[in-house]
């Protein structure tokens, strides 16, 4: 299943070069061989609906001023949900600012994600006991962390793997190279999960690199590389699953390039019309390659889904989102004095004094709680 990158370099449209299981028409291209049962398929669909609803809600919340600038991921649900569902609870996850879908499916509580976009001081925490890191802002840096955590697990004989999420743009940074090289040398149980959504903000991948694919770079480090249809949740799940298993068996890292597309803006502060024919291209992907539509078709055709279920799901999902939003909005507001906590394990004198100083001002201003 995991095709060598060299096999993927033939000319043609990207669809002909990627690993695909469920095509856009909702047809299975190969046997699932029991790896994805009906329950799991339905769960996949539910998860994608869940995160899509979250994403749309967040865009609205941003417009209403209830959260700050937000980075939407609509269109990338299969990549994020499919990859996260292939993990176990114990696995380490290193998301970026766009990977909340993956994080939530891996166990991140939604209210914390809201807190993040509200810029709450606790917005960069994760569910207790989870190994989900705060979203990485500096591009490609988190790949190295995932090599490190994986390495430690390997040294300790633990079976958990580490997965780093990143974008096509990230593949240009030096840290991408150093991470893949270290992972190759130390054979760490690391999964490099690249969502190639075609753009780094406004810059299309053709300007990012002369190489046609990102997966082909795996060969430079003698690690596994595979290019998949990132809008096909079956392909994503199976590929990540295999990479995870290989990693757990001690067979080292995998680079996965999931070809996908973000329908919307880079962030709510971005205007995609500046750099692409936004309506047309976005509609093109939505109409012809949507990850939810194709699974819906497949499930419906196989009698596993219908409009009643859909309606039930949506109302459940919306209720959950409202509940989590309420939880976030009712969460005690960030207090300025929190900025002095956790700089060090023990607060040194100068920070303690500065805290006192601010405390005094806040008290005088009357806004200390």
């Amino acid at each position, binding site marked *: 299943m995991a095709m060598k990158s060299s096999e993927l370099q033939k000319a043609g449209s990207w669809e002909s070069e990627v690993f695909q299981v469920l095509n856009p028409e909702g047809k299975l291209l190969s046997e699932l061989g029991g790896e994805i049962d009906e329950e799991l398929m339905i769960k996949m669909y539910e998860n994608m609906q869940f995160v899509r609803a979250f994403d749309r809600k967040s865009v609205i919340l941003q417009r209403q001023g209830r959260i*700050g*600038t937000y980075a939407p991921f609509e269109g990338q649900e299969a990549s994020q949900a499919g990859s996260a569902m292939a993990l176990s609870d114990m696995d380490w996850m290193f998301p970026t*600012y766009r990977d909340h879908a993956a994080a939530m499916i891996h166990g991140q509580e939604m209210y914390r994600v809201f807190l993040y976009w*509200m*810029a*709450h*001081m606790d*917005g*960069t925490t994760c569910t207790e006991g989870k190994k989900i890191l*705060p979203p990485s*802002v*500096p*591009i490609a840096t988190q790949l190295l962390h995932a090599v490190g955590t994986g390495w430690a697990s390997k040294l300790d004989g633990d079976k958990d793997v580490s997965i780093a999420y990143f974008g096509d*743009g*990230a593949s*240009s*940074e*030096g*840290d991408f190279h150093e991470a893949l090289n270290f992972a190759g040398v130390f054979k760490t149980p690391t999964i490099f999960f690249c969502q190639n959504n075609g753009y*780094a*903000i*406004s*810059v299309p991948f053709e*300007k*990012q*690199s002369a190489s046609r694919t990102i997966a082909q770079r795996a060969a430079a480090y003698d690690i596994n590389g595979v290019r998949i249809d990132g809008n096909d949740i079956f392909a994503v799940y199976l590929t990540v699953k295999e990479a995870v298993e290989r990693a757990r068996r001690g067979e080292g890292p995998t680079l996965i390039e999931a070809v996908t597309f973000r329908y919307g803006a880079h962030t709510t*502060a*971005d205007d995609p019309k*500046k*750099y692409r024919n936004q309506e047309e291209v976005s509609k093109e992907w939505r109409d012809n390659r949507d990850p939810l539509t194709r699974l819906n078709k497949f499930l419906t055709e196989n009698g596993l889904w219908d409009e009643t279920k859909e309606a039930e799901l949506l109302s459940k999902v919306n209720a959950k989102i409202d509940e989590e939003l309420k939880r976030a909005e009712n969460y005690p*507001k*960030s*207090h*300025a004095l*929190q*900025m*002095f906590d956790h*700089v060090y394990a023990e607060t040194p004198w*100068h*920070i303690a004094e*500065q805290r006192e100083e*601010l405390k005094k*001002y*806040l008290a*005088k*201003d009357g806004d200390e709680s």
Partner: protein
Amino acid sequence: MIQAITEVMDQKLAEDPRVMLLGEDIGVNGGVFRATDGLVEKYGEDRVVDTPLAESGIVGTSIGLAMNGKIPIVEIQFLAFIYPAFEQVVSHAARMRYRSRGQFEVPMVIRTPYGAGIRGPELHSESVESFFAHTPGLKVVVPGSPYDAKGLLVSAIEDRDPVIFLEPTKLYRAFKEEVPEELYRVPLGKAKVVKEGTDLTIFSWGAMLREAVNAASKLEKEKGMSCEVVDLRTLYPLDRDTIIESVKKTGRAVVVHEAHKTAGLGGEVISLINDEALIYLKAPVKRITGFDVPVPMFSVEEDYMPTLERVKRGIEETVNF
């Protein structure tokens, strides 16, 4: 301020064929703050270059471009994203002239938005100017007004040494000021007395300048204090003469900056005063600065930065010392 900056680049691209712009999303997108809006359409992709997402690559290739006859104006999307290029800046751009004893030079400008106050995500609000002010071979410039932004940027582009040009995001769209259309120069290395005064001097730069000016006018009105406000503008090398002259006159000073206090440039200003004007001092020079904590999430960023209130009280404490 952002229009003034765009205008300079536009005029310089038109005037000097050596000038090139490089950066992430500066082409059709016009930059995340729109500083390069419309320029690629006007000057083409060879002169306004959307680069790959790799800061060391951007700065490193720009060093080569500069050595070979170009004048690259690099946009780093936000100041913290210069770190991947730190080695290229510190070990090469700053030293190429020195190492080659003048045989090669690196005339380039690295423009980058910096500072807090616009509800940016993590790492979008850093204020680490002192890193560059500790690096011989670099110049560090921070405009505090649209007029200065234009004049300083022209000087930076014409300077034959690498200039770190820090643009306070909070001032990008903060105030309107008529700016002459033609190119003019504001010299590097010269501070500006923004407001004269006799009781105390406020040294500041960038976005904090506005708190400084506001505090000065408030205290003037409320308490009849007369504060001089000095915009340092070039942070490396500092304009010592203006600093000392002002302190000799007022005998009291505060430094207001949003960078962390420890090892921030406030310490450098204080040291210059200590060197040259200690005996004129009637009170310790107070630093009113960002705290020694990572710039926090924006829900509390306003309290991280010196507030008008903190500046005012700092001044009063210094005057009443």
